[in-house]
């Protein structure tokens, strides 16, 4: 028996969340006296996972699985779990992992708990802590099925090194045509830029920016910080920014280490989706803006003066700390 972890890749390279889920799996494996087996699909350096406590990697090398396909990937994970006799499966909380987890749960008759923010509180009974009510609460959830699937929230557990020699074994699950009823025609993805889901830092701006023509300074700030850019809902509704940048309760969730909100009021629906971020900074000219109550650091001031100044100060900081 081993704990199985599904490790995501992007163009053959492991995503940061792959190392995070591996770290999480190692924590459970130690509590249960087991080892960690990872499933890696078309990964270039599968042995990298050893750094985070994985002792065996089932490496799939299969051209038909080059692009993500939820059903086919779920099928591969299910077959790996059955082969390894794994009763606990760890996945991330990325859009792709959430997509495949429901399919996987039905296939393995497993209880699935997404948005988990901490190592299990108990193994028997098996209890995990997760966010609920769009981050306005937490639930302590028991999983009673024999097979359990846990979706770990981004940045919730962090990376824990536990260097082990990872043995990489080829794995060739049977994938059939029926798995490809949904075909990817085209992927339109920004390359070379941090995404909201993966970024350590997210720079977000709202209607206070007045118009799309003013986003240059937001992008410059994000560039310096290696951050992803995001926006409030009205900004994407107005077409100032693409829909994919809308964060909040009905948009993308943000669980970054640092979230900088510029010209965003901090309505309850916005806060619900971003409050899982560790450190929150708000820049707003209205001292009564509700965001100040939810933030760790704040500047009451005009974004059009504060942001250029912040860019200058960050350039100086970078030069000194290079």
């Amino acid at each position: 028996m081993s704990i199985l972890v599904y490790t995501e890749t992007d163009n053959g390279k492991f995503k940061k969340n792959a190392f995070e889920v591996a770290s999480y799996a190692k924590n459970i494996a130690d509590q249960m006296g087991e080892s960690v087996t990872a499933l890696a699909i078309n990964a270039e350096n599968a042995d990298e996972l050893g750094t985070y406590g994985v002792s065996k990697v089932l490496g799939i090398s299969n051209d038909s699985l080059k692009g993500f396909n939820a059903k086919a990937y779920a099928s591969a994970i299910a077959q790996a779990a059955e082969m390894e006799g794994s009763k606990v499966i760890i996945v991330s909380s990325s859009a792709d992992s959430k997509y495949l987890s429901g399919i996987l749960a039905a296939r393995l008759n497993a209880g699935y708990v997404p948005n988990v923010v901490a190592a299990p509180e108990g193994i028997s009974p098996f209890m995990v802590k997760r966010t609920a009510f769009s981050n306005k609460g937490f639930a302590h959830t028991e999983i009673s099925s024999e097979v359990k699937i846990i979706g770990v929230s981004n940045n919730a557990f962090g990376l824990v090194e536990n260097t082990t020699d990872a043995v990489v074994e080829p794995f060739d699950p049977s994938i059939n045509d029926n798995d490809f009823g949904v075909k990817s025609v085209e992927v339109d993805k920004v390359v070379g830029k941090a995404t909201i889901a993966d970024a350590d830092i997210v720079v977000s701006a709202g209607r206070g920016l007045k118009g799309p023509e003013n986003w240059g300074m937001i992008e410059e700030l994000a560039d310096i910080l290696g951050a992803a850019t995001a926006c409030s809902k009205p900004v994407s509704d107005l077409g100032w920014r693409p829909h994919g940048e809308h964060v909040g309760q009905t948009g993308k969730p943000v669980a970054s280490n640092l979230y900088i909100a510029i010209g965003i009021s901090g309505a309850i629906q916005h806060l619900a989706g971003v409050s899982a971020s560790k450190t929150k900074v708000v820049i707003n000219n209205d001292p009564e803006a509700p965001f100040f109550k939810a933030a760790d650091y704040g500047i009451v001031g005009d974004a059009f003066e504060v942001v250029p100044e912040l860019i200058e100060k960050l350039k100086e900081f970078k030069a000194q700390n290079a």
Partner: protein
Amino acid sequence: MKILVCISNVPDTTSKINFTDDDTKFDTNGVQFVINPNDEFGLTRAMWFKEKQGATVHVATVGDASVEPTIRKALAIGADEGIRINAAPKDGFFVARQLAEIVKNGGYDLIIAGRESIDYNGGMVPGIMASLLDMNFVNTCIDLEVDGTEATAQREIDGGKEKISTSLPLIIGGQKGLVEESDLRIPNMRGIMMARKKALNIVDPIDAPSPTNDKKFERPAAKGPVKLVDAGNVGELVNLLHNEAKAL
């Protein structure tokens, strides 16, 4: 085309979240329940199919009698028939099993669910249903066109979007983007009157497991006050983020 829209009855987005019974239950006191926002986009897209391409639209919810105003609202918006599966929604697995049973017996071509409901945020119902029914499934769906039995969809992915081709019968997990926010509908008087006459079928639940169980809830810890930095001293913010928050 026969469409089923799965609707979750959730606390309104502005609801304050509290718990009762020693933090073991969600406190519904004073909470207004609404159609889950992700499902509302799906319902409106279903209305579009009905009006533009011809479709019959049913809505289904798992819940006790208290969810009926939400189903009536969907009927007032234009759905043809409502189905209430008479059971407390225990967990995502349980709900998906109940809905899958409705799909199995209803001969639907398209099943529209939300990406997730904004109360428990499980996001597993459409995927479990798709797997149980062995149907094609597109999650985080932001655009859907149907031509005969062929469908093209777009889904939101981390950092962009993906165009997909697939075929009916199909299940989607939908969200904002399926229709514009400005196209969402508020029931008018005529719709409300008509909804009263539409069928709201009450169905007994099937026996289904609920492998997860929320034992206890907790509210996030109270936050300390914000640390304000003078607008004339922006460098201090960089300093605090580096030395105190360790965020740079």
